[in-house]
């Protein structure tokens, strides 16, 4: 761990956690990432391993088996995982997102009953908001949850679900009332529930080892005690979870950008053209300088938002800014990394073409960057 990272980690405990993450990344993630990406193989065993190491419940309360870590620490762990393997870093972020509704809005009884298993390391979660016809405009989602005695019956199709078909539990947003944002409620659905099935995984341009698929709900019966928060509070619950999730995506983006920067820098120091290492050609050196500046500013941005959150202050605007900046920065940085490597960068002999494909998805998930700008503009207007 370098001195800068040490300075960004507030306690000896957090430093030890980061060192553990570094070791797991170096020994268990890095050697497998490229092959799993090429084969589109979901690494369930890797999640089990990092789960047993305690990385699947870091921001949640120790009382329920979590790590009680501030977001500023948890996010750096996500960044470090994503630096080695985006599918794993993003998977941890999505899992954490899918536990958010219960952890923040569940009753004590609900939390005691389900949370320890969800964050204990053996289970993996998924978050079901998007639908085929309602992506950015999620408030108009149409998946229905109809009350039937002491159960709800869920019907509809959720789209683009990370860990679809792999997860052990699904946090699902479904309509229980009026049209629009106020008619939505949140449910915690067990993967074994009858009538729940995953469609064929999507064929993606990158992050292929992270399974993304539609989840089809056909008369899925869910006991009423699995409804989380107030009836009609679901959209608010979903948006508060996304505020946190966006920080996870920002951290992932910084991890990918850092990986691209490191590869490009090492290459530029040893590759000689016109009689000197290409890093000494100003055009290349400045490219690398801009990549480094964007990446470090990105880290500072997500940490600033995280500190607000850790202090219990509003942070939605800062989270949107961090998500927007970090993912746009990762896109530009990975494009530039390919450029620095020249022809070699365009081949699969080097990881930078993969980083480029991975960065793209981060501009789309958990609110496209257009939607982030909408969030920021609305916050500016409100003042």
């Amino acid at each position: 761990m370098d001195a800068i990272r040490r300075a960004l980690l507030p306690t000896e405990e957090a430093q030890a956690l980061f060192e553990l993450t570094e070791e797991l990344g170096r020994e268990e993630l890095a050697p497998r990432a490229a092959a799993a990406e090429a084969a589109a193989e979901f690494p369930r065993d890797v999640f089990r391993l990092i789960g047993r190491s305690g990385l699947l419940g870091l921001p949640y309360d120790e009382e329920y088996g979590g790590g009680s870590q501030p977001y500023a620490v948890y996010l750096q762990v996500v960044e470090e995982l994503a630096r080695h393997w985006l599918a794993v870093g993003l998977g941890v972020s999505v899992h954490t997102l899918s536990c958010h509704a219960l952890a923040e809005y569940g009753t004590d009884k609900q939390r005691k009953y389900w949370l320890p298993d969800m964050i204990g390391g053996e289970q993996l979660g998924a978050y079901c908001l998007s639908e085929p016809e309602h992506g950015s405009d999620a408030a108009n989602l149409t998946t229905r949850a109809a009350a039937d005695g002491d159960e709800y019956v869920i019907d509809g199709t959720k789209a683009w679900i990370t860990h679809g078909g792999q997860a052990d539990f699904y946090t699902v947003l479904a309509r229980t009332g009026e049209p629009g944002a106020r008619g939505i409620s949140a449910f915690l659905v067990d993967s074994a529930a009858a009538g729940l099935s995953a469609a064929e995984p999507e064929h993606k341009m990158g992050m292929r080892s992270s399974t993304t698929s539609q989840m089809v709900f056909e008369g899925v019966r869910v006991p009423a005690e699995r409804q989380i928060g107030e009836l009609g509070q679901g959209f608010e619950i979903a948006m508060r979870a996304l505020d946190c999730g966006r920080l996870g995506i920002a951290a992932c983006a910084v991890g990918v950008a850092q990986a691209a920067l490191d590869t490009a820098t090492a290459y530029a120091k040893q590759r000689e053209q016109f009689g000197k290492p290409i890093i000494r050609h100003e055009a290349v050196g400045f490219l690398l300088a801009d990549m480094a500046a964007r990446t470090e500013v990105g880290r500072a941005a997500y940490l600033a938002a995280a500190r607000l959150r850790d202090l219990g202050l509003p942070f939605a605007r800062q989270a949107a800014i961090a998500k927007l900046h970090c993912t746009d920065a990762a896109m530009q940085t990975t494009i530039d990394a390919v450029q620095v490597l020249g022809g070699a960068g365009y081949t699969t002999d080097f990881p930078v073409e993969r980083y480029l494909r991975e960065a793209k998805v981060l501009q789309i998930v958990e609110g496209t960057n257009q939607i982030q700008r909408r969030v920021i503009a609305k916050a500016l207007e409100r003042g």
Partner: protein
Amino acid sequence: MKIVVLVKQVPDTAADKRLDPDTLAVDRGAVDGLINEMDEFAVEEALQLVEKHGGEVTVVSMGPDDATDAYKKALQMGADKAVFLSDPALAGSDALATSEALAKVLGTLEYDLVILGSEASDARTSLVPALLAERLGLPQLTFASKVEVDGSAIRVNRLTDYGHDVVEAALPAVVSVVEKINEPRYPSFKGIMAAKKKPVEALDLAGLGLDAGSVGWAGSRSKVLDATVAPPRAKGTIVTDEGNGGSELVGFLASKKFV
């Protein structure tokens, strides 16, 4: 059963190491220190034995006063407590002097079994396990690739060039393990937090009742007289196959007296 595992902090094998020009010893301050990799297998084996038979694991480490990462890692993996021997007068100890100091530490502990890694990645002498067993007057079972404990007996597969020997002894005994033996666990975050609350006994020579003259530079019987940097590896020969590749290769091997 009570198991003592000896762990050593070594310079990161991946880092560029150099010798201190004054002492001709490895400059440990210049690179990151971490637990000797083979010792992680020793810790894992001890943890597995205790999980099976009950008992506790004590780690013992000796080194400069900032060489705390090795025993901390063992505590994070699950060892119950640590003993850390550190004294300026220990600097420069060779294998003989080291075994003297460690034997003395073991004299203060209760144990049924002592486990070590077969070698440390810095000096790679593989001497300490045998020296220690000799000093303690205990049976030594070295290069173990499998360990079984049955009551007061221990049986190990001892790795050899041609396979393995099965070696048995009565407890207490000293065992050194090889990397084949198991797959060391990663610490968990909970293990890391718990480790900070585990007891660590700090010892120095005075506390141990050991004379400074019998360890360190003074007590070591091997001396490094001179050291030179290894010459860079000579360039390999590339044979381009233009129909006669086979005979070229045989000619090369013959010139080196391999065939």
